[in-house]
């Protein structure tokens, strides 16, 4: 089997965050993949760069989990594109994941920036 999955760790780390970002982006309304990528880049003030290959796989994964749904449509500039939108299940997931993320960042912050104690 000629596959090499040596960067599995990195993908796993990205996965959770990328999924969350996609869901958040789609909360604003249906969008195609390219739009999602652009939107994430723009909203993060170009800090986050989305690997497009991973993005489409993530979209596919979310679709498989029925968190988002997709159908082919036409973009503003008359291009054929696949539009993704959030499902009810996706909304619930977004809420849960967001609160989890907040807890995580708070906990990380507490550890990384302890108040009143020298490192």
């Amino acid at each position, binding site marked *: 089997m000629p596959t090499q999955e040596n960067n599995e760790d990195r993908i796993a780390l990205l996965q959770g965050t990328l999924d969350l970002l996609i869901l958040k982006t789609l909360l604003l309304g249906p969008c195609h993949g390219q739009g999602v990528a652009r939107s994430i880049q723009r909203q993060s003030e170009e800090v986050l760069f989305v690997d497009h*290959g991973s993005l*489409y796989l993530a979209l596919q994964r979310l*679709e498989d989990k029925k968190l988002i749904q997709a159908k082919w449509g036409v973009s503003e500039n008359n*291009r054929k*594109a696949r539009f993704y939108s959030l499902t009810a299940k996706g909304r619930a997931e977004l809420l849960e994941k967001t609160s989890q993320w907040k807890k995580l960042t708070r906990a990380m912050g507490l550890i990384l920036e302890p108040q009143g104690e020298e490192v």
Partner: protein
Amino acid sequence: MFRRKRSAEDFAEEIRSHLELEADELRSEGMDQEEAHRRARVDFGSVRAARERFYMKSRWQWLDRLVRDLRFGFRSLRQSPGFALTAILTLALGVGANTAVFSVMNAVLLRSLPVADPHRLFYLRTSNPPRGTGTIDTTQTFSYPVYDALRNDKRALSPVIAYVPLSGNKVAVRYGAQPEEGEGDMVSGTFFSGLGVKLSRGRGFTEQDEKDHAPIAVISYNYWTRRFARNPDVLGSTLYVNAIGFTIIGIAAEGFEGLEPGASTDFWIPLQNRPELNAWGNAPEDGKIYTTNPTWWCLRLIGRIAPGVSRQQAVSALTPLFQRAAYVGLGSPMEGEKPPTLGLEEAKGFPGYSERFGKPLRLLMAMVGFVLLIALTNVAMLLMARNAARQREFSMRLALGAGRRDLLRQLLIESLMLVAAGGVLAWLFAIAATRALAAWAQIESSLAPDETVLIFALSILVLAALLFGLAPLRIALAAGPALALKSSAATSNVDAGKSRAAKAIVALQMTLCVVLLVGAGLLIRTLRNLENTPLGLHVDGLVVFGVKPEFKSVPQGIAFYQELMSKLRALPAVESVTVMGERLGSWWSNNSDMTVDGRLPDVPNGGSRTVRSNVVGPGFFTTLGVPVLAGRDFADSDTANSPHVGIINEQFAKRFFPNQNPLGRMIGTGDGRYQMTVVGVVKDHKYRSIDEGPIPMAWYMYAQIPIVGKMDVEMRVHGDPLAILPSARKVVQQMDPNLALIKPMTQRAQYELTISNQILFARLAGFFGLLAVVLVATGLYGTLAYRVSRRTAEIGVRMALGAARAQVVWMILRDSLLLTAFGVVAGIPLAIFVGRALSSSLYGVRPLDLVTYALAISGVTLVALAASAAPAGRAASIDPQKALREE
């Protein structure tokens, strides 16, 4: 889960659309078209990688991979068709033989009777009927008064059901115009309801039907299928049994074939009281039939034990009743006479099979178990050898990036393919073999493999798959990617531990092979002995058939048989014709005490007084070819009006007339009422069966005794004995259109039926012995050939250093001879053990028969030499230069 939602094309389309959109956007930011397209592409990264990842993540992947693995496995098996074929056939034979024997065992020993709650059903048994009674079977049959007494006591056993065949053989039936024969039983009114056998159509019997002796019949599902092609119109039509009409009112549930041991009953009628339908087809004795003769113990009884009552409680509750009823018509027991006891025997299995087939089947199961063990180890060894030979291939694949899991999965899939192919073949083989077994064993009830058998076969296969999966595991894991690069064929596989394991397995196979060969040899010698046993008569050219006409009087019956014999004698190619009451070689015999000179003879040393007797026609011994030692044969001139004459055999003369001339002396029935003069002494000959010992015998002349009924006709003809049957049938039916020829066959075939079990057993044992030999030979050959091919370089070096070819050959042969020696040493004690277990099935050969052991040992030695010959030859023809250069 199984349907892919998106095709890879759709995904590619989405990526293309992404690139367009991105380019559009870049252009709107002021980039020129070409640059925009380029940037979009660069930003995206590798389109191909994304598509590949999409593909790999898709849910069809496992199936894709499976298909690919299967294809690869198929290709790699096809590369070594010899290996694949050997493995599959070995599996098929081993598993198939086991499945077949198991399915017979399942049908015969393990399956329950298809009745409601079979665990509460018990056969009634007795120790010994009182003196002065006549019995069919000394422990299994009862008189009508006993039946009547027991069924009226409903405390312990309710109901008590009686059943009795209408004939010891088959009974004449007619449906429409053509006379046929069938197996029929007379049964209690509670037969179907009490056993809990459902009727698939119509109704069963009631107690009122039994009281009325109603002319109604229920046929078996099997008979309905076989004879009436499941025509529903058969209900309400008339079945003639011994020319008496019975209306068919029901068809029994599928799978229920009655309670007769080892037989399949075609129809049942309520207990009758007509002389034409006496139990066992016997002629009435002094006008009495089974219901009116209290001293004839002829009914089989089965009862359903009441809930909550133990077997012991039931026996003690019924014993007083039973012992009283046992003496009805006999007066009170004599001084010191032990009254008969009552017993109950579980009835949940199929009747009679356990006694007849239990032991041989268990032994066969053990034998095929050995065969299976050999087969499985064989395939495992073949697989190990093959995969060891492929170790460098594995290393190469590991080095090229295959995961260990991929390798392992590949090996498992290959084993699974072998097991699946072998399993399918095995199942087909088992079905055919089961049929053959049933035909040989003459088991008439259906033997179709059921779920139990399927589960049995599948569990063996799973075991095999696991074994075969684990065998290559070690080898696959032992192969590292570096191996391919650094080692050569000469050194990559010299693993002492592994070859020791293979040697142990071969030695084990040799052991099992010795045991199987000894077992098979003993049984085959038994069969030889049986077949070569002199019968004491000239059996070739004899043909026999039964007729069961109805007579109003004894003279009419005698006249019928006289006419029949003279008409048959007139047929072309017929040499002589006679009649007999009991057919020779049918297992049946009439045993009783006889008076000598008017009183029961004293027998020295407490020997048996029992005499076996038969009723026969004129020219009986001449027809059979039994030498008359003194006096004469019966003749046409011996009639009802001439003095009563009898003939005895040597044993009779020896026991009851020691050192005297028996001619002219008087002998008679046990009660002394019928007396006859001894006019002849004939040589001892086989009467009931081939494997019986000599026993005193006496013959009555049929035309002189006061009973006449069913007889068997024995004809000596020139040419093919069976060719006379059509014209004989014509003669019989001209005399009475209701008559069928009952069980027509050659007398030799009739005798051989008495050793059919032994024939079957010996043939099967021989077959399995042969199978074991072939399997062991292939296994040994495979192992040795593999070892020689592994040692090519080593042998090359040896020869280069001056080893002679003979030395190399001896080196290989010594290996296999050593293994054989180990196997033989381990096998002989085991074979002695098996021989002991077989001893009751042997005839004329001791369990420690030296010839058999010698043959078995030389057999495995020969196999070992034959299997080593080719590898040894190959080793000897190795060209040292070539062998060394190859590395």
